[in-house]
């Protein structure tokens, strides 16, 4: 018996999101869209707020390191925490005096060009394609990651900065255990320490890092150096195999870390710690 509907040769449906798949293929892209949008909206708001990012001994990871500080803002880092002192006079008036604006572009570019996030947002935001064997958004001349999208190769540059930021955040996590020179532990210390752990798992499981640590070698056994790098490559590959998980866990936790510091600074929640 013949089907009443007409189809292209092969019976394939044509057009954006057209498919004969009968599973709920759209759930993944929708969850990705909601998750990434929620983070971007919160992070943008928090970055432009320019306040309540510090409460001794905790510094929000969105604002670390503090390059300049606008000390009169509520919940701002004290001058002693700033690398280059007070807020500069040359800063354009139309931009808020927020130290996060110096920081967030670096992890922002690292995540934007990350191989996992590329898959996530190409599917969820640009529909190229929305899911496997589901019609991609039609384009006159699809160029992939060539032409202007060649900027995705900035990932290597961004990785070098991301590794620096791991060092900064490790220092922040370390000093979060000291208040007025006295060692102690607070919920904030644990939050900031976990933040470093998750970000390290994400950054050191990154495909570019995996390549640099050993993947670029053609021979893993030719000398002692390459054998050591092979060992490192295998360990990094374990992290890399869960790169999506680390991407989401670290994204959520870095946002949560900022929120935690902000809520403590605002006095909305009280930090449980051993100092008080």
């Amino acid at each position: 018996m013949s089907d009443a509907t007409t189809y292209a040769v092969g019976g394939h449906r044509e057009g954006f999101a057209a498919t004969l798949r009968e599973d709920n293929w759209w759930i993944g892209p929708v969850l990705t869209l909601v998750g990434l949008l929620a983070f971007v909206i919160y992070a943008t708001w928090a970055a432009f707020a320019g306040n309540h990012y510090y409460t001794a001994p905790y510094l929000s990871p969105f604002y670390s390191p503090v390059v300049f500080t606008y000390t009169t803002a509520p919940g701002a880092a004290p001058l002693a925490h700033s690398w280059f002192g007070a807020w500069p006079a040359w800063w354009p008036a139309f931009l808020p005096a927020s130290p996060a604006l110096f920081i967030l572009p670096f992890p922002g570019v690292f995540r934007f060009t990350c191989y996992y996030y590329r898959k996530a947002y190409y599917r969820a935001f640009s529909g190229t394609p929305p899911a496997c064997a589901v019609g991609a958004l039609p384009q006159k001349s699809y160029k992939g990651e060539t032409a202007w999208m060649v900027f995705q190769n900035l990932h290597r540059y961004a990785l070098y900065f991301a590794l620096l930021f791991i060092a900064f955040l490790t220092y922040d996590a370390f000093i979060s255990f000291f208040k007025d020179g006295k060692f102690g532990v607070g919920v904030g210390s644990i939050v900031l320490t976990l933040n470093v752990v998750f970000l390290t798992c994400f950054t050191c499981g990154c495909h570019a890092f995996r390549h640099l640590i050993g993947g670029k070698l053609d021979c893993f056994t030719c000398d002692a150096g390459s054998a050591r790098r092979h060992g490192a490559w295998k360990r990094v590959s374990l992290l890399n195999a869960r790169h999506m998980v680390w991407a989401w866990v670290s994204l959520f936790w870095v946002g949560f870390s900022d929120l935690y510091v902000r809520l403590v600074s605002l006095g909305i929640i009280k930090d449980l710690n051993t100092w008080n």
Partner: protein
Amino acid sequence: MAKTRKFRIWRGDEQAGDFQDYDVEVETGMVVLDAIHLIQAEQAHDLAVRWNCKAGKCGSCSMEINGKPRLSCMTRMNEYAPDETITVQPMRTFRVIKDLVCDVSWNYEQNKKIAPFKPGPRDADGNYRMKQDDVDRVQEFRKCIECFLCQDVCHVLRDHEQKEKFVGPRFMIRLAGLEMHPLDTADRIPKIKEEFGVGMCNITRCCTEVCPEHIGITDNGIIPLKERVVDRYYDPLRILWRKLTGKT
């Protein structure tokens, strides 16, 4: 116990065609290819289907089942609900010859473009030697059975029809296997960037999802090739190193 299952199979050639409905008595343990063979034997003797090993190793019986590119010999009937109609189509990316059979010869043309394995000099005793750690990585790529499901699902080829600009995931992993081979001396990076079009891939990983051999096509093949291209053309520190030392 046999149960009646409903199939919709696309019948036609490269000019035109349509879905035809069939009811099949399916036994426990059958795969989709078994059901298609039953239809061929009992209801549609002229139904064209390519197959060979029925063991997921020859890569012949690739088709799209309920919209997903799959090997029909490895798709068990009990994956589908008893009342679910099973829709079967030929692969979309390649020209249809008849019914479920496609012309996949374009793939073999791509393969010819790739510079073959070029080993360096032999050891003093006349042998080549590789250690197991080096074998392990490239061995993964040798598992490919050339079912071309990855080529079928790749949206660069499937939706955007950029066959002149991208050789597709199957040949990216062939290139990866050669480039990472410890004995190989050929340099394919410039062609990987330009002629073979690694930049056309946007890492949406559908090739990895459909691979019946579970090869890490994206993570272990395409991305490492992209990184090797970055090494050569985009890495700021390596560019600086080359300028300072004159070394590659």
